């Protein structure tokens, strides 16, 4: 009898485990398919916009014809050539160039090809752009600029994230104090974007006080020793990173502080206080624990945000990052580069969103993965 019950229970728990796995895998599958469709739609839209629905083709065709005409007239400047031969030569060269750029196939087909290549991360070759090392591979163009962007965005955003979390926690403890009020008063200054502060910083520290460089990433010529090089890099980093930090520091602290305050006004926090727990313990167990999912989400989104660069701040500080590369690519109608940066961001975003669901389930016991939609 007893053994029967035990096997029964074992069977039941096995069945439950099996159903959990089933549910989980179904959930994962649905989620993955949904995310994939989102990426496909988003990237295809980007391709369409990057070509203005095929209008960029017209621009490029005219551009090619003009360039070829110039070339031919330069080539034949000293040679007598009748108009027919000349026109034939021009047409041949135009056709060749159009074939090279893939303009001989209609845009509808080409856009699908772009999409397929993008989705398989086959980034291909740029149309006009060349990396600083002379490579036409989109991958090389992006990889070459990525370190600069990651350095700038990484230092500023990580610093911003942790300092504002730390200060917000402290402020939420001393609610209503002078510092708390100061942060509230200063938070509207964050309505200005980083480049706005950047211009002021350049004005004060570079033009007026002359203690920091105007722009760029290293001095010209760059220092030869590694130590001096790093110091030089840091010196150039201060102003752009500083403006990225200052422009959202106060609003970030304010938002986190308000967020923590909402959680610290819960009844269970009062109970914990009544029990006589130390404030550090209350913070760790009753405030940070329930807010962890939000903190993790924000951190994950911050990390993928690093890869998109800060186009305008990079422009103001002439920082050779990814944001500027995208801007240049757009100016040169370089679809592969534009699509390349978009697809990387899209994949990163999709994976992050996908994994966040699991992280939620780990850090927050209230979240359960269910088979049905949400």
């Amino acid at each position, binding site marked *: 009898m007893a053994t029967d019950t035990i096997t029964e229970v074992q069977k039941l728990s096995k069945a439950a485990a099996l159903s959990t796995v089933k549910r989980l895998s179904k959930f994962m599958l649905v989620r993955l398919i*949904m995310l994939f*469709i*989102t*990426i496909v*739609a*988003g*990237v295809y*839209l*980007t391709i369409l*916009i*990057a070509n*203005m629905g095929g*209008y*960029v083709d017209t*621009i490029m065709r005219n551009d090619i014809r003009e360039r070829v005409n110039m070339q031919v007239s330069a080539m034949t400047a000293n040679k007598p050539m009748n108009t027919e031969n000349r026109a034939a030569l021009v047409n041949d060269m135009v056709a060749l160039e159009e074939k090279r750029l893939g303009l001989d196939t209609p845009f509808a087909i080409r856009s699908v090809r772009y999409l397929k290549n993008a989705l398989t991360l086959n980034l291909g070759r740029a149309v006009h752009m060349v990396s600083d090392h002379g490579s036409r591979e989109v991958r090389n163009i992006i990889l070459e600029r990525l370190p600069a962007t990651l350095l700038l965005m990484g230092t500023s955003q990580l610093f911003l994230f942790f300092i504002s979390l730390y200060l917000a926690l402290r402020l939420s403890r001393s*609610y209503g104090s002078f510092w708390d009020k100061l942060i509230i*008063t200063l*938070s*509207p*200054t*964050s*309505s*200005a*974007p980083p*480049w*706005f502060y950047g*211009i*002021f910083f*350049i*004005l004060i520290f*570079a*033009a007026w006080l002359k203690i920091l460089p*105007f722009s760029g990433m290293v001095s010209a010529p760059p220092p030869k020793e590694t130590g001096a090089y790093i110091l030089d890099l840091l010196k150039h980093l201060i102003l752009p990173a500083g403006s990225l930090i200052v422009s959202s520091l106060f609003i970030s602290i304010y938002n986190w502080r*308000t967020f923590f*305050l*909402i959680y610290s006004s819960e009844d269970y926090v009062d109970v914990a206080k009544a029990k006589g727990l130390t404030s550090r313990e209350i913070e760790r167990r009753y405030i940070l624990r329930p807010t962890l999912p939000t903190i993790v989400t924000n951190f994950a989104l911050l990390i993928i945000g690093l890869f*998109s660069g800060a*186009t*305008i701040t990079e*422009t*103001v500080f002439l920082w050779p990052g990814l944001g500027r590369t*995208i*801007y240049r690519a*757009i*100016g040169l*109608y370089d679809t592969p580069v*534009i699509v390349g*940066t*978009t697809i990387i*961001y*899209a994949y990163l*975003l*999709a994976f992050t969103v996908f994994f966040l669901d699991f992280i939620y389930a780990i850090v927050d016991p209230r979240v359960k993965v269910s088979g049905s939609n949400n």
Partner: protein
Amino acid sequence: MKALKNSLREIFRYPSAIFGAILILLLIALAIFAVIKIPYEEAVKHWRGSEEYVYKNPKNVPPEWYNLFSKKNLPVSFAVVAGEDKEFTKVVTVGETTSTIDYEYSFDFQYDDYPQELFLYIQSNHQTKNPFLSVVLETPTGEEIKISDFGTLNNQTYRFSQDQKLSTRLRRLYGCEVPTIKGLFSIPKSDPLEINRGKYTLRIMVTTFEENNDVRIEFVNHGLVYGLFGTDHMRRDLTIAILWGAPIALVFGLVAAAGTSILSMLIAAVGAWFGGWLDELIQRITEINLVLPFLSILIMIGTFYSRSIWIILGATIVLSIFTGAIKTDRAIFLQVKESTYIEAAKAYGASNGRIIVRYMVPRIIPLLIPGLVSAIPSYVFLEASLALLGLGDPTIPTWGKVINDARENGALYVGQFYWILEPAALLMITGLGFALFGFALDRIFNPRLRGM
């Protein structure tokens, strides 16, 4: 309604809200003043910078009030027309075959630097025989410097610094090569050049050879400070851009913020109310929009398609509808949808449209307004950001374009700070005004933030 009124009364408890409201009102006043003072067509034409609009303006000089802060007293720009200005006298002596017109203009020069350039703009209505001008400048120390003698065309511009003969004459006077304008305003033979302060008199004698031949002379002095806001590299008066930037920034920010938040609220309401595939579709579009690179798309539209500020505005609204706001709104609507009064409305047979517009939307408005007001600065700055990338509307004077012009012409490197600080200050005021006001509204209307 009454609750709304009470909430509005509560605003006055927040000093920052009052300060923000004052800034906003000042901006609106500035915008209205700009629209009334300078008609749009006029502003756009002036901003193109054709000669007829800018001939009185020196190039790249700070505003007149710059003198209050600088150690040096910089020469102020002026332009005077003979006969129209009291100081610029015009005496006509009619003769039998020839007449003479004597012009005399005295001005006090007590500055620590030299003007940029001097001009005579001459217009004469003669038919065949050109009138003859002789121009003389009397310096405070009593020398009479002969500027030039020439027969004038119907329309002629005489530029002091471009006259080779005058340059030669000054070289003879000084005994060495000296820039024309400096030569005119220095004590002769001083080394190093010392500014000759005091009263200068410009005398022009015109001999005309036809009856009723009138000659209009305008004396233009390009100083080193100009007007209320200074000028830029194309000699355009920055007043135009500073004043007209206000209405454009306000309209852009307001339309973008209102369009975005109202449209996303309505779409969220429709999605939440009907549910099903419509709701699902809206959710999916929001996710797709998350993947799209917002700034890159705006740059692409600016580069490939059109730089018109209105097209950029439209694209901004379209791209900003399906963002986080739609999710927040939807969550609230899903709650509202379950309320008993909605059920009551359904019971009495209200249509879907009626329930959405009359019963669901009003519930969210208190939450919508603070968000809308706080979003305005971000759109104002977005327009400036695009201008900074060189994608601003080329025909319309905006603050962002001024900053971009200044940056591209190295204003920070050569120290023309006024050029950047003026539009930046106004952008700052706009940003602060709306942010302060929106912040206070948020704390009043958002029950979770009340008292935090």
